[in-house]
């Protein structure tokens, strides 16, 4: 812009000296050049405005416009996941390389529509809204790169969240068609409902070579620790229902069971618990005679009485989350959202994000076999611990469960932490809710150490221009045996510090007392304190009523035998 302005100012100065015939010709030519320049300038300065216009046209795009890819019957099938895969064996770390931000670059494949030779799609649903949300969130995040050559992690746009809607073999074939598949190296798949009848495997059945799996429902036998990521099963109620956060504390019910497909053996067990403990337990089931049009997912019943789900979860201290055909249950998300402490009964289940989240502070895990002892176990938990767990549960939901975005970005952060472990998020960052982060005190010198005397101390003396006073301080302090170094900070620009070893006599200085008694001085200092407290957002200073003295301070004891006899004798 600056350049073009310069040209236009020079132009008119020359023009009057020309013949009119040529003038029009040149003016036209010149304005073309000018326009070109301006356009260039625009292009350079606001490139994104132009591209976002292109984006806008993309926005209009429909999933049906995705290019069609026909899978030949004979196209290769990846190997089943290798259970021994770990980051150092199956992950190509060179693709991530060293970067000062310690952040991995993630590439998302453009959407394609895979069909078999007969034109039947590999998935009955195609791209789901949730997977679309997940991919958009990643593409909006700092992890995203559109440069496939710089990517460290690749995410296929093939939606495998729900295995039920997939044709296993064809989906696997589609994966190998991805241009950078390379045995699944550095590829990440998201799956929340794994397995199918009759066995319901606990990991996605689609063969996937070395691809990492972010799975919701791993058991200890399918989860490759340090390689896969255990994720929650997203509950759409997270987005549909707003449950206000409630203060931790006792609730109307002690234990609530709200799942509808509980095995009859377990339901019988729960009924027995209910008989023994009465009102403290509420056992809900699905409603048998709901009027048409009422979303059955949002109602629960007990003996004909109808309750709103998930709102009812907020009325209980503990909420049972039992395994179903699968280990991962969407109910866990609802329970956390309600700030109800989940009681998880799903043997061998790998809890969501267990690599970084400390579930012991937010949940109770009980072996399925001990369902009958649940009440006794929960009763033994101190009230204050229950409250902490309620708060912690809600925080986990807000930070890590509440949206597909939260789930996706948490997964990427976990993988990022593995690749740059020295820059990994800390336990406190992952687990402390904001209220704790604000109020907790974590000293940078946390090791209980009593340092030896040998290194001594450094005295730092701030001075302005009261040289007499300064020299008096220096003389006194240099008598101290453990003084290692004395540092004088000369805080006066108008005067250079005194040189040499001039001898000063101590004058009668009363200035110090005068200073602190000065009324304006005190007012100023009060203002400082208020200003600092407002910047800190809280008052970090603490009041104590004690003072440290030597053990024998002012004791009726021979002064000679005291280590610090002169203290307090001023």
């Amino acid at each position, binding site marked *: 812009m600056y350049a073009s302005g310069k040209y236009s100012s020079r132009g008119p100065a*020359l023009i009057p000296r020309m013949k009119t015939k040529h003038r029009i010709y040149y003016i036209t030519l010149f304005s073309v050049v000018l326009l070109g320049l301006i356009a260039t300038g625009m292009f350079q300065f606001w490139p994104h405005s132009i591209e976002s216009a292109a984006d806008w046209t993309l926005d209009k795009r429909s999933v049906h416009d995705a290019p069609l890819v026909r899978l030949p019957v004979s196209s290769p099938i990846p190997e089943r996941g290798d259970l021994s895969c770990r980051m150092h064996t199956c992950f190509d770390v060179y693709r991530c390389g060293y970067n000062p931000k310690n952040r991995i670059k993630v590439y998302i494949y453009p959407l394609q529509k895979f069909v078999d030779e007969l034109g039947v799609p590999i998935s009955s649903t195609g791209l789901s809204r949730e997977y679309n949300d997940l991919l958009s969130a990643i593409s909006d995040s700092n992890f995203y790169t559109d440069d496939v050559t710089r990517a460290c992690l690749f995410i296929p746009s093939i939606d495998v969240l729900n295995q039920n809607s997939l044709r296993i073999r064809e989906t696997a074939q589609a994966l190998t068609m991805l241009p950078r598949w390379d045995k699944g190296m550095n590829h990440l798949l998201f799956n929340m409902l794994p397995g199918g009848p009759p066995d319901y495997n606990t990991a996605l059945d689609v063969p996937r070579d070395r691809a990492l799996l972010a799975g919701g429902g791993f058991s200890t036998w399918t989860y490759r620790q340090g390689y896969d990521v255990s994720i929650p099963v997203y509950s759409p109620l997270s987005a549909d229902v707003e449950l206000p956060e409630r203060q931790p504390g006792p609730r109307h019910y002690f234990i609530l069971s709200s799942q509808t497909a509980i095995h009859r053996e377990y339901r019988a067990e729960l009924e027995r618990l209910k008989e023994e403990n009465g009102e403290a337990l509420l056992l809900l089931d699905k409603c048998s005679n709901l009027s048409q049009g009422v979303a059955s997912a949002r109602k629960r019943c007990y003996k004909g009485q109808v309750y709103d789900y998930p709102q009812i979860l907020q009325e209980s201290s503990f909420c049972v989350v039992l395994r179903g055909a699968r280990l991962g249950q969407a109910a866990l998300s609802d329970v956390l959202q309600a700030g109800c402490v989940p009681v998880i009964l799903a043997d061998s289940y790998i809890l969501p994000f267990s690599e970084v989240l400390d579930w012991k502070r937010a949940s109770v895990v009980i072996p399925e076999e001990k369902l009958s002892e649940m009440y006794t176990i929960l009763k033994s938990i*101190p009230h204050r611990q229950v409250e902490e767990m309620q708060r912690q549960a809600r925080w986990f939901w807000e930070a890590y469960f509440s949206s597909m975005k939260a789930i996706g970005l948490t997964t990427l952060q976990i993988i990022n932490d593995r690749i740059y472990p020295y820059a990994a998020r800390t336990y406190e960052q992952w687990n402390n809710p904001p209220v704790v982060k604000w109020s907790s005190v974590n000293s940078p010198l946390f090791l209980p150490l009593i340092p030896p005397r040998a290194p001594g101390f450094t005295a730092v003396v701030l001075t302005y221009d009261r040289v007499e006073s300064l020299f008096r301080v220096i003389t006194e302090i240099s008598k101290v045996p453990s003084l290692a170094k004395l540092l004088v900070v000369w805080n006066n620009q108008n005067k250079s510090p005194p040189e040499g070893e001039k001898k000063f006599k101590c004058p009668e200085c009363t200035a110090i007392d005068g200073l602190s008694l000065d009324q304006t001085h005190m007012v100023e200092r009060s203002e400082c304190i208020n200003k600092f407290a407002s910047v800190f957002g809280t008052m970090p200073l603490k009041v104590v009523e004690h003072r440290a003295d030597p053990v024998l301070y002012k004791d009726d004891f021979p002064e000679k035998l005291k280590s610090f006899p002169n203290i307090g004798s001023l």
Partner: protein
Amino acid sequence: MQAKKRYLILLSAGACLVLLFYLGGVQLPAASRSRHDRSRNGYRPDQPWPHFSDPLHLFLPWDQTDTEEYNLHISPRHKRDVNTSVYKGKRCRMDSCFDFSLCQKNGFKVYVYPQQKGEKISESYQNILSTIEGSRFYTSDPGQACLFVLSLDTLDRDQLSPQYVHNLKTKVQNLPLWNDGRNHLIFNLYSGTWPDYTEDLGFDIGQAMLAKASISTENVRPNFDVSIPLFSKEHPRTGGERGYLKYNSIPPFRKYMLVFKGKRYLTGIGSDTRNALHHVHNAEDVVLLTTCKHGKDWQKHKDARCDKDNAEYDKYDYKEMLHNSTFCLVPRGRRLGSFRFLEALQAACVPVMLSNGWELPFSEIIDWNTAAVIGDERLLLQIPTTVRSIHQDKILSLRQQTQFLWEAYFSSVEKIVLTTLEIIQDRVFEHGSRSSLMWNSHPGGLFALPQYSGYLGDFPFYYATLGIKPYPKFTAVIHAVSPLVSQSQPILKLLVAVAKSQYCAQIIVLWNCDKPLPAKHRWPATSVPVIVIEGENKVMSSRFLPYETIVTDAVLSLDEDTVLSTTEVDFAFTVWQSFPERIVGYPARSHFWDSNKERWGYTSKWTNDYSMVLTGAAIYHRYYHYLYTNYLPTSLKSMVDQLANCEDILMNFLVSAVTKLPPIKVTQKKQYKETMMGQSSRASRWADPDHFAQRQTCMNKFASWFGAMPLVHSQMRLDPVLFKDQVSILRKKYRDIERL
């Protein structure tokens, strides 16, 4: 036509410029800068993942129909049984290879097989076994046991080693309680031998758990095996050396940035990384030295670099480097783990791990990112850049954490073994297990017993971390040993004075007197509840029982003849609120090393320092009652009971072992000393010449059990802010303390 020419030139120049801009060969500096800024802010110029406008299918996570179908065909119990029978051997997990029912009745008890005649046991393994036998988990009755430990030495399974035990397979199979290794724990330090060093132990371990050094992530069975550190024969059985960090220096950089000194393997497994180290060595602050001189015939394999490397190697002293480096490289050796790991940890030299696939020691509970840098062998060349990029605040914290972890879990065989057992116990009783915070912050998992409470705020250690405060009141526990005969007895005065404290919630009188309980009306009327408890067996240790009636975090422990004013109590309690993990009290005592007798000495003289505060008048956290009762061995507690002495010394040992800090003495009225040592019932106890000698003996006995002297000296006394200052007494809040 000069002007025309000029115009033509100008025009063509302009056109060229435009062309250049379009081709992108020249960019306006402003524009290129702004683009750069955007990328730094995380802005991306485009967003190829489109926001699809058409309605998409919803993901429905409810597997209700699946589950209903599934439930029809399967019984949960049956399903569990199937898992148990399928997942064996390499796929063992607690769910499939461990019998939880053995632990239900008697809790977590560990049985050690009796040692068989003629079986050699290495010193290290002997240390492991005696640690277990001396621990509170031990049982000599296999019928009570939850976990079984072999008396056959399985530590060294390298066939070429002299410690190798032969025919282990048959010996193990013949054990009557073996039961295919179910609920057995096998310790191992070395497995496999040259050249491939496999992780197989050379006998069928069945369903037994492994506590093994150098275990790999591929072979470790998650939450079943335990990765333990490699330790040497010289590793002390108990106690152990402190960490080398004596004080924090800021900035935290040391003479060297990164060091290593060790063998280089010319061939075979584990040689790659060490062979490449010289690329990173710069002989200045990154000093990585290797030698080829090891083994019998190194000359045969020696390569071109050997002589140069060997010469450089001899120039540096390992110890000097270890203590003067910020980071210490810990590359894999033949096996994944190496001694260097523990050496670096103790030396407060932050370990930089280069051992791909090593399941780090106790990785189930320790967050190693807080104390080490986990490098990748494949990225060796990036290591110097990586460690240089670590901020000094982080280095300071990493370094302190090395010291915490070393002292909490690694400094002795005892700690390593107990940590292993506690990890397994936490799995067995999962709903009452430690959170990661308890394992990874001071004082560590061995001192934070989850059976006491699952709530972190019930412990004295986590208030600051959680941003909470202890309960603002205390419970007084008065230890009564003499019968109530007159209304002027000190105990009654004490009761009244303590009850007047604004912080007093309740008073418990522990009746450890042989005479029957006095009638209720004999106790003075107070504003706080007075609860009288009849002491269990009337023994000394009962004063430290974790009574359920103690509902406050703070306990004010009192002897019956203690003389205290309400002001003194109030002041001590406000001090305790600032130091809830320490003992805060009045009369103090000190220990010293008597070099003539080569033993610890005890002194009650007024000196300039102290290391103990008597629990006849002290405030501390109620958790220490639990710890005293459940952590300390019966041998020490019964010694205290038999002597009816030393309980206060033992409590001070315990608290200082936990906190690594001295107790806190607060100021007291001077008359206190006289009463303490003078008249009344207590006199008999203190006047007894044996009493003092007993206390010396106790000190030495306790120190030997702790493996070291945990007491720490202090020269500090805490006084009220205006204590004995030359200001009007009316301005002082705790003026009674100064008045005689």
